[in-house]
Every structure is written in C-alpha cells, then in structure tokens.
C-alpha cells in the first residue's frame, strides 16, 4: 500500500504509528474524568440541582473507564506483554504511570465510591432477589450485610472523603494523558506545557456534555420528565468550563502564531490543508464556537423550556463531536507532518482491521452496553425507589 507523501518525510515517518484507537483513548478517559467531576460537584460542593445526575454520572464514568484500556491493548504490538507495565514500570516514562493511575482511579476511587453509595441497595437486593442476580449481589456485599444507621453514616463520610480525593485523581488521570503528548519534545504539535490542562478542561467539557445528553435520553426512554432546573444548571457548568477550555486553546494557538518558531510554517500549512476540515471547521467552529454561542444565548435570552431542551441537546451533541475532533487533531495531526518540517504524510484508516474504523465504532458502543447492564444492576434513578422491596409502579407518562 503506497501512502501518499507530500514533500520530504524521514523514510520511517511515512507510516503513522498511533491510529484512531489512540484517538479514542483520550476521548474516553476524558468522558470518564468529566463525568466524575460533574458527579463530585453535587457531593463536595453540595449543588442540589444536579443531584438527579449524580449516580448516572458515576455509572457513566465507570462504564467508560472499563473500556478505556481496550483501545490501548488492541493497539499494542504485543498485547500479552502489557502486564510488564505493572511489573517493571519505568519511572521516567509518562506512559508507565498509566497502569497505576488507572488502577488507582478504578479501584480506589470510582469502584469504592459507587460501592459505598450503593451498598445499602446491594445488601437489600442480596436478600430480596434470587438466582444469578442474588449471587452477584451477594458477592458485592463481601459477605457483610450490616446496614445499621451508624454504618451507613460511616459509608457516607468515607464516600465524601473519597470524592475529595477523587477530584484531584480525575484531574491526574486526564492531566497525565495530556502529559503523555505534551512532554514529547521531538513533536512541536504536542510539546506544550498547556497540553495537560487543555486536556483536563476539554475532558470536563466532554464529560459534562455526555452526562447531560445521557440524562435527557435516559429520562425520555423511561418516559419521565427531565428536571429542567437540573438541566439548566448542567448547561451552565458546561458553558463555563467550555469558556475556560476555549480560552486555553486559543491562548495556545495565539502563542504559537505569535512565536512562529521553526515548526510554525510547517504546522500552519498543515492546519490550512490536511487539518482544515477537522480542526478549523469541526473542532473550532462547529464543536466549540457554535455550542458556546448556543449555550450563551440561553443565558442571555428567555427561552421556553422546550426550546431550551432542544438547544441543550444540540449544543451537547456538537460539543461531544467537537471534543472528539480535538483528540483526532492532536493525535493524528501530530503525526501527519515530518519532524524535518519539510513534508506531510497521510493517515489511511483501516476498515475491518485490528486498528480500523469498525473496531473503533465497536469500542464506542461498548461503554453504552456496559452502562445498560450497570443501570439494570444498580438503578441510578432517584425516583425508582432504591429499595426493590417496593415494587416500582409502571411509569406513567405525565407529559
């Protein structure tokens, strides 16, 4: 397969090393970090308005976190050797920390927080359900069915403490993903101290937008009404984080243009040609400016509830697409130009290959499957009654 090259590439540079799967990885961990931070808002800062999304946000974070290592694993030349990262982690490697940051975040933060929050439900269900589900709940109780008031109060306090640790952990999880790229001095498209912080804020943006959309979608599927106050609040957070994210990205851009170092001419040409569509049109205009404008309008003008919901849905979708485009432009864009600054190569995405489009689509659907199972197992709806002994009445359409 001949890869089209323009100008001069070092001969080993023609083939791209990091594929669409490595685009998915920061996108997915971004959703995790963002969803978790939204959940933490309610708990740590006591924002009651977003309470309906608390458990949903946690479960969303968990389902995406479980999928996060899969694109990496599939991408490795020797997937069977990935455990070496735990055995002999290289302390000077940003990537070596992945395993530990991931484990910490999964085991110590997310699972623990969810477990503590759901423990009462789990214990009750382990006694009321039957068959396989009963067994699952029994395992989840660790053989202890203490749900005394005091124990629940301890859980609550411990959960609060974990959330406190969880916020910096979420920042760490995604900040370090930014560092993986930002610390590559050989690559001027990546090498920037702003990279980790841009990654964190874009993660929050995508996570908040995703939870907002999931909340709207799931309430609709259950035939309930969304709490518009909650939605307004989330949309407001989305707008503010987006403004910070956009300012940071523009700061990076302006800095690059003004400094115009040795790589600038090459990168500038790339943005105006190969990345024009994905960077300028999709990422900046459609994926950032448009949702900010839409969300900004809802703050300035008085719209009816229905119109606001529509705007939020549209802005949320544009945001998620825009953040995906941002990951694409970082990962793929950073490999399209030669480190000699004299030429450009082309990324040819496979279709039904190990690192192809089909795999990427499957990996993006998978978290929703996991979320579906988690929601069945641990219903996050505040109105469904967390004690299953009370039979939930069939949903009435009230709207």
């Amino acid at each position: 397969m001949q890869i089209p090259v323009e100008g001069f590439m070092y001969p080993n540079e023609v083939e791209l090393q990091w594929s669409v799967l490595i685009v998915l990885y920061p996108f997915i961990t971004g959703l995790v970090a963002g969803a978790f931070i939204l959940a933490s808002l309610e708990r740590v800062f006591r924002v009651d308005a977003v309470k309906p999304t608390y458990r949903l946000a946690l479960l969303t974070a968990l389902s995406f976190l479980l999928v996060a290592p899969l694109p990496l694993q599939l991408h490795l030349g020797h997937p069977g050797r990935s455990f070496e990262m735990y055995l002999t982690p290289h302390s000077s490697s940003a990537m070596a920390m992945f395993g530990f940051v991931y484990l910490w975040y999964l085991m110590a933060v997310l699972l623990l927080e969810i477990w503590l929050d759901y423990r009462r439900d789990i214990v009750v269900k382990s006694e009321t359900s039957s068959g396989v589900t009963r067994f699952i709940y029994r395992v989840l109780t660790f053989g202890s069915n203490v749900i005394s008031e005091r124990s629940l109060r301890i859980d609550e306090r411990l959960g609060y403490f974990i959330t406190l640790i969880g916020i910096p952990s979420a920042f760490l999880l995604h900040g370090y993903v930014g560092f993986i790229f930002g610390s590559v001095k050989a690559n001027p498209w990546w090498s920037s101290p702003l990279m980790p912080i841009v990654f964190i804020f874009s993660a929050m943006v995508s996570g908040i937008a995703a939870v907002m959309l999931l909340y709207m979608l799931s309430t609709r599927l259950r035939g309930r009404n969304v709490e518009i106050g909650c939605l307004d609040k989330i949309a407001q957070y989305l707008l503010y984080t987006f403004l910070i994210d956009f300012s940071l990205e523009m700061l990076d851009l302006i800095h690059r243009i003004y400094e115009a170092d040795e790589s600038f001419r090459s990168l500038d040409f790339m943005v105006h040609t190969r990345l024009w569509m994905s960077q300028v049109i999709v990422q900046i205009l459609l994926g950032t400016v448009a949702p900010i404008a839409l969300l900004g309008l809802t703050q300035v003008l008085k719209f009816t509830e229905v119109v606001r919901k529509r705007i939020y849905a549209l802005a949320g979708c544009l945001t998620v697409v825009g953040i995906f485009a941002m990951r694409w432009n970082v990962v793929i864009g950073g490999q399209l130009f030669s480190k000699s600054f004299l030429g450009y190569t082309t990324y040819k995405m496979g279709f039904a290959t190990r690192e192809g489009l089909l795999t990427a689509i499957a990996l993006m659907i998978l978290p929703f499957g996991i979320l579906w199972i988690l929601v069945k197992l641990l219903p996050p709806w505040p109105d469904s009654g967390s004690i299953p002994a009370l039979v939930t009445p069939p949903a009435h359409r009230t709207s």
Partner: protein
Amino acid sequence: MFKDVEHLIRLAAVMAIALVAFVVLRAAIVPHSFGQYGHYRGAAIAEIAARPIGFAGHDACEGCHSDVVDQKKQGKHVVVACEACHGALAKHADDPGSVTPAKLDTAVICARCHEADSAKPKWFPQVLTADHSGGLACDTCHQPHSPKIETQKIETKTKAEGKQ
C-alpha cells in the same frame, strides 16, 4: 464497635490479599537479570551481541586473497573494502567451499558510486555512464581492483575483438 465497619474490614482484607498476591507474582515473573545494569533486562545485551555476523570484514578476506590485496595496492580502490562490492560473505570466510561469491556485473556495480551527480563531492571520479561507455561493462577497459586505465589491456581487448 467493629460491627458497623465489618464490610470495610472485609474490603480491606480483599485488597490486602490482592496486594500480597501481586508482590509475590511480581517477584516470580520479573526476569532475573532485570536491573543488572539499569532499568532493563541485563541479559538482553548478550543476546543482541550474540547475533551472527553477515559481513566478514576485509581483514578476514585479506588472510587468503593476498593477490587481490597486492593488486588493490596499485590503485585508488585500496581503501574500498572487499564486501563493499562483493556483498556479505562471512559464510564464505568461514567455509570457502560453502558459498562462492557471485560474478559481479560491473556495468551496474561501478555506476552505484561513479554515476555523475551534482551532490557528489567534486574530487570524486564520476561519469555519465551512458556517454562514457555506452552501456559497455566497465571491466572492458578498467580492472576493478586497480581501476586506472592500463593501455596494454585495452589493446589486447581490441585485438581480441578484432579477431572475432
């Protein structure tokens, strides 16, 4: 008193067991020579060094082919190693009978170095082969081991061609 935190104690126990299992497994799996010289498998150095060689090196050739060495001393190609033209021949050096070096096509081999190119240093002898020899093999006139033209050789060649 501990009754209310029983679930937490059980959880901590599970985590402790997992941690111990990890430490034990790690000790068992990590290669022994890891860390011998630094953060890598020390035995890898010897493994990489153990790879068999392909090019014997001109010292090995010169041990047997002293006649060619003498011939090369007459001309500028004295600095060119044998395997630069003849290719990798460690197997031949080890057991001369096992591999016989192929006869070289001088029309191709010589042009690799001597085809004119403005990027080549000016001191380096270079020709446009099409104009210079018109596709004739270079060893029609030049002795590759000592390429300076010997008038006598050309005469014999011309005579030989004349007789045909």
